[in-house]
């Protein structure tokens, strides 16, 4: 981070956008479809923003609501859940369960004013690397428009990295 980093308020929005801020996206990726698509995206050298972090999980159906909320609580700007296409879940209907679960979390996010738009689920197969990269870019841009997660711990902003 640049040493001359200073807080500035862009007029017209409520959101604090420190200069140099890049959306921090956590992507829960089903290890059957999404992780494979991520691998394929790398293999063909697609590019997507480096503010993304991938957390592999056996099935999106196993993602707990608490994990999603926890991510936001700890300051992630956006969360993308990438699961199998309909009918393609290796655990039959885990992806469907994840969709339903996400709806509830989104409602909570809206309710607390964080914005349900910060959480998104997409479905793709392991062959859809370009789509994977597109989704990574899209959520990054969505979050960029929404601004940083206001719950982001203040100390993080001053801590910086060596």
């Amino acid at each position, binding site marked *: 981070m640049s040493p001359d980093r200073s807080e500035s308020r862009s007029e017209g929005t409520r959101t604090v956008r420190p200069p140099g801020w*890049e959306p*921090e996206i*956590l992507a829960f990726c089903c*290890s*059957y*479809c999404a*992780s*494979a698509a*991520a*691998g*394929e*995206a*790398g*293999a*063909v*050298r*697609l*590019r*997507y923003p*480096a*503010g*993304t*972090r*991938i*957390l*592999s*999980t*056996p*099935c999106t*159906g*196993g*993602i*707990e*609501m*608490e*994990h999603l909320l*926890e*991510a936001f609580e*700890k*300051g*992630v700007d956006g969360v993308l859940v990438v699961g199998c296409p309909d*009918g*393609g*879940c*290796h*655990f*039959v*209907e*885990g992806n469907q*369960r994840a969709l339903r*679960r996400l709806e509830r979390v989104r409602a909570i996010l809206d309710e607390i004013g964080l914005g349900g738009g910060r959480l998104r689920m997409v479905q793709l*197969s*392991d*062959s*859809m690397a370009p789509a994977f990269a597109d989704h990574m870019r899209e959520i990054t841009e969505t979050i960029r428009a929404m601004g940083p997660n206001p719950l982001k711990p203040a*100390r*993080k902003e001053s*801590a*910086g*990295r060596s």
Partner: protein
Amino acid sequence: MGSGRERPGGVGAVLVCGSGGAGIQAALDLAESGFRVILAEAGAAIGGRAARSDDTLSGGDCAMCLLSPRLAECARNRNIEIFTLADVLEVSGEPGRFRVRIRHNPRYVDPGKCDGCGNCAAVCPVTLPAAPGEEALKAISRPWPQAIPNIFSISRVAGAAPCRGACPAGVNVPGFLALLGAGRLEAAYTLLRDRCPFPGTSGRICRRPCESACRRGARDGAVAVGDLERFVADAVASAETTLLPAAEGAAGTRARVAVIGGGPAGLVAARDLALTGYRVTLFEAQPLLGGMLRYGVPPFRLPREVLDREIGALLPPGLELRTSTRVDKPAGLLSVHGGAFGAVFLACGAWAGRRLGIPGEGADGVWQAVDYLRVSNSGPPAPIGPGVLVIGESDLALDAARTALRAPGVRRVTLACLHGRGEVPVDAGRLALAAGEGVEVEYGLGPTRVNTLAGRVVSVSFRACTSVFDEHGRYDPLYDDAATRTLGADTVILASGRGVDAAGYALERRPGGRLLADPLTGATGVPGIFAGGDAVLGPASLAEAIAQGRRAAESMDAWLKRNAPIREAAAMGVSGAGPRHPVPMAPDPAPAGLQAGSREVAEARRCLNCGACSECGLCTTACSAGAIDLAQAPSESEIEVGSVIVAPEETGAPGWSELAARIGLDPDAPGVPPESVRTRLPGVYAAVGRGAEIAAAVTRGSAAAACAMEQLASVRGTLARPRSYPWERDVTDEEARIGVFVCRCGHQISPAVDVAEVCRSVAALEGVHCVEALEYSCSDSGLRRMKRRIGEHRLNRLVVASCSSRTYEALFQEVLRESGLNRYLLATANIREECAWVHGGDEAATRKAVDLVAMAAARARHLRPLPPVDLPVTASALVLGGGSSGMTAALSLAGQGFGVHLVERSGALGGGGRRPGPEEGGAGDRADGLIDRVTAHPRITLHLDSELRAVAGQAGDFTCRLNVSGWGRVTLAAGVVIVATGAGGENEALAAKLRVALGEDGGFRPAHPVLRPVDLVNEGQFFCTAAPPSSIQERVLRARAAAARAATILSKPQLEIAGHVASVNPVFCVACGTCVRLCPYGAPFIGEARKAAVQEVKCAGCGSCVASCPRRAITLRREESGTVTAMLGQLLAAGGGY
């Protein structure tokens, strides 16, 4: 299993020749399905040429990254024995029981001692020419840093360097040049002096047969070995190093021996004998030592300080020197004749000038060149001139002429040669030098008489010589008597040769007067008397004299020990007699940047390294393990195998046509029919690669393996050894001790991600006890490094940050098992596909990599050992599609003893329900034959008019439900599923049932486009349909390949599966039944005491119940419940997050 075609007593082992993509795949398939494999590779490491090319293939991996882990698997498989540098010489016997003779070529490095440290290559001065695009290797090298085996080998073609064989003294010319080329003057000098004790002298006067033999000579001039020799000798002498030993060795205690003659032969013999321990007396007729070097060679050509220095350095202490002592009766010196010596070496030289046999030769003013030079070199110049005529055309004549030119009062020196211009048999440079000094050279003159006046020479008459040699090359000059010429002279010096004046020695002599001695030992007819040097050879070179002295000393030692006089090696001096080996020309090195002696270093580097290794000895010194062994010789062994697979990388691969010829195959088309893996020899299969097309090679390797499996079905498992691991340490109660290994993946991860920074950043994380960057984590050396670190740091968790984990996870798990740890104590981070490859050039990439690794470390802290669950394997296959592919796969598996359910949608086999493709024209008969065999096979169950409805389960234990038209539903158990349907329309529905995704072309996608071309993404599912247009042979190959892959599962009685199942903590469970309702597999149930429990066999480990349980009572057994929280915490912690 194991009840295939009965073959009494076959051998359950297969020889795979060649370790490219095809050979590696065949070896792995066979070893994974119950066979023992001998993998024979002609090169120094397995992997073939593909493994060392860094061409990026489809899938984004370079060939080396792709093959490296497969090679590591080979190296770690207990059932694969690797023979490198191995040539298959002969295959005899019969199918099922072949005897194979294998030659093991020397590596010149002891594999048991070499630890791959690379010190040897660091010092090796010889760089071999490299093919375009390949890295140049040293003469001692390993093909690439992760080579398997990871030990060095020496490229060495003994006897290939013609210079070395040409040197009579046996100087290691290539070694000398290599050392000098590396700027190692002192080492070069030491090596030189080992064979040539007069390097300064030799560098000035040697006739340089090495340069005549130099292969560079024909191209752009031989390497100036002689000049370099002189340079090195002078440089070392002027540096006054301790290299010039004034006196080596100690006074001997053995018998007394006499050496007669203080020329080079006598000096070398005296030194060698003294060093061996003999008490030596050296007799020299002249006042000073040196013989022809001192009394023949003029000082302007050989400065006396050089000669004195080198003789002084040569003389051993304790040597008794008797100069000015002429010995007339050498036999009298022998103790048997009353003398004091046990043996005598006679090296009295050749000092008798040869007469021309023309009138007037005895006149005043006529000198013999040897006499003239001896007088001139001993004291004041002989009175000659002013007009001097030298007759002769040898070095002797040139020396005489040039000496005369320098004599006081001489005004004109003429050299009369017999040969015509340009034909004179002396070094052209030396002749030109003499001419340049003022010697007038006349050509084509044969002397007829010396004209005198009052007994004193006034002129010499010549006639023209028209030719010197006859048509057979024999010396037989022809003259034109009509063309005469007379050259005036005050002094005539005859230099037409030197003879031996040995009449008084009472020894046998040759007709020309030379002493008769055994050419190998130097022994004369008188026991105890040995002879050598010019006295035996006639006028010979310094190098020959040195060799003679050395050999005589050896034979005298042997003789004195009452052994027969035998020379150490009959081949000495003729080691270059074999055919010359073509080597590519090395580029001229740029001389810039070198310090003192850069010109010489550059010249030395012109050496073409004809024999690769120069045997300079630097590696021997550098290797602390003492692994270098240049004495290694080829050896042979014989092995017994049931089947042979030849797997050249392509038909043009080096050594393949020879191997094919030895085995009896057509090298261009070993397959019968041409594209097949079957050959004309039963039991011998060919998996010929397609050069860079590794996927094709892999398919062929598997197909060939399938054929061998069919053939050897009855002996499967008879020689295979089960894997064994150390007892697993229970780490449940241990604090996490994590080892983090960050892969550079060659240059794939490393520049995009600052690996060193990643290592630094994660080192302080909780529980991390060891962080290390690895060049290739998937290589055998990388895996061994992890294993070593686990032991050293008593680690109990492993984090590997490398590429997509599903590719190589099994390899890392093996490391854990081999280290006595549960294999599930592994967490991976994909910093290649998910980071380096998608964010290359972005400086945030390194930060992301740090986070990914930190998250993996957090996961690792929460990992728990999982007890393995053994899943019994159903030893039968479900094959979907009754066309030629499906029938071939079915027959292959049935032939191996497995049950097969062949499912065909239509009512008939043979693809009858579908359109016959044009490429299948003429294949009808073949299809009919297949149908008959399939129908008749007892282990194949046909399901016609049937369609797959659903598949459940996992590799080894699939439950397959079929719809049979007009009949109902059938449920089958199968260990594997093989898709062999052709039509594109079917694929979509089928893919959905198998839960695999189709590619953009609507076809099935392989698990890996290159390495696993017939595997589907789901374990235990394979496909042999290929994208059209595909030939029938290609489909057969793919069908066989799928069968081989399937056999790696079906041949195992059980598969160890991840015990990655859910478990319920009854304390929290309120038996609400959510999990029971949710689970797609029906694993949870409400058991006794009104608590939920999970049937482990049914649980697939998806985690749905975990996420749904309102009481948080369920966890996946692999991880503690806090894992994700911990990972998030790690990711987002201040300073640790992003």
